[in-house]
């Protein structure tokens, strides 16, 4: 789905929740910011620098990391090796293997994957694979992290613990944009909520305001 005339500003330290019906352009927006898609017009700025049209690896090096809704692990490598790639490249590359390994073990610990660090990624369950996405993104040392549906398909208990993880990342001062379908979760984590519909922004404000917005209710419930 295309994005049309979208104006969006995210301030440092915010946790912006991004919601909208299927096909409203949430993932497209992530693909635009992270460089997987190039906008036809308009521009994207990060930290006062124009990053429009940069390749994804450059965007990552500038300090914007993303996860994939359909997880994309390095399937035949262990969790530790997966995270090591983020650490060895990313925005603050550590080429010293021992140092990188220590950092990555801490990140795996933080994301609750410490027990799985030597498991091959292909053998991980869905909840673990989603956490691995987050761990790998964190290893690139981003200042802005884009989380794409980290809770879809999870059990209530897994959703709960992933929510705590996202909250903990936000508390560390990192700026987050979170796409999520699980309403309860997104209302709880985000400091600001934004609603997309047909590629346009229809609401933007505090979670309490937005859920009472007439346009939002119409987009979700029809009429």
């Amino acid at each position, binding site marked *: 789905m295309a994005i049309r005339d979208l104006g969006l500003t995210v301030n440092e330290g915010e946790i912006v929740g991004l919601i909208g019906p299927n096909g409203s352009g949430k993932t497209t927006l992530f693909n635009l910011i*992270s460089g*997987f898609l190039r906008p036809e017009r308009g521009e994207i700025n990060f930290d006062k620098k124009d990053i429009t049209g940069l*390749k*994804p*690896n*450059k965007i*990552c*090096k500038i300090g914007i*990391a*993303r996860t*994939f809704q359909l997880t*994309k*692990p*390095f*399937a*035949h*490598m262990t969790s530790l*090796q997966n995270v*090591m*790639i*983020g650490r*060895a*490249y*990313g*925005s603050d*590359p550590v*080429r010293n293997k021992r140092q990188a390994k220590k950092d990555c073990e801490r990140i795996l610990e933080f994301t609750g994957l410490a027990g799985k660090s030597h498991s091959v990624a292909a053998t991980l369950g869905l909840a673990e694979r989603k956490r691995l996405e987050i761990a*790998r*993104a964190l*290893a*690139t040392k981003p200042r802005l992290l884009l989380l794409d549906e980290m809770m879809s398909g999870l059990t209530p208990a897994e959703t709960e613990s992933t929510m705590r993880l996202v909250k903990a990342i936000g508390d560390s001062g990192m700026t987050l944009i979170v796409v999520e379908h699980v309403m309860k979760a997104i209302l709880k984590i985000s400091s600001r909520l934004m609603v997309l519909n047909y590629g346009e922004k229809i609401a933007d404000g505090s979670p309490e305001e937005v859920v009472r917005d007439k346009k939002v209710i119409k987009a979700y419930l029809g009429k």
Partner: protein
Amino acid sequence: MVLVPLITRRDDVLTWLCLTLQYIILSHSWNIIGGYAGQRSLGHAAFFGLGALIARYLWLSGLPLFLGLLAGASTAAIFAIIIGFPTFRMRGIYFAIGTLVLAEILRIIFETTLPQASVFPTRLLATYNLVPRYYLSLLIAGLTVATVYWISHSTLGLGMISIREEQDAAEASGVDTLRHKLLAFAISSFFAGLAGGVFTYYAAALRPGQMFEPVWTFDAVVIVFVGGVGTISGPIIGAVFFVLLKQLLSIYLPGGIHILVFGVLFIIVVLFLPGGLIKLMPKLRKRISRGRHPY
């Protein structure tokens, strides 16, 4: 290995060793781009051929051999970078077909422009000796394996493997995938060019077009897959096995039949032993130890 020529000067032994070493160079060079970076190029013959022709003509025109080898290998690497830009826009099967077509174009060009076979001049034929051929093959094979070992333990190798595993995730993690692929392609082609150069020093007579035939590509691919793709020892095991089979079968069966046998073996390995012969040993060991301790 260094002492072999001191123990035996039997031509059949030295020929067998030379061929094995040359196939190690060729298959390991493909292993870099196809095994580690995961870009299944089918145009490997192009780089083998370029390295072979340039090295041969420079050497036969009087230049020192190592300069010829270097010039041939470098040309192959530069050519790889040039064709890498358009071909790396394609992924998977399209990349494979694109590179195959490029190699075929080169083959046809050289078949038509240089139809004459190139034969060593009589002064070289009179003094032809397998021992220096053996040492050159050994040296370059050692260099190739050492390079692959270094790559597999470096950050560069980690980046290459990440592209093989999941290109989008690699890019999102900060890996400049185009740069890594080009570099892998250039290094791979450099060694393919060296393989061609070594072969050209070994072969007394050859047709230029023959150096670009797809069989060079497919031999390399099959050896890597049968031995163990993306590993250090896999292509070595594969090359030993390949040459052994080739030499043995050529004694008893009409020429070329080894390709058929190896092709069937390739299918069997891919279907039942993904990971190659290198995976056979731990599997057997497990089975034996399981037999010993049934519970």
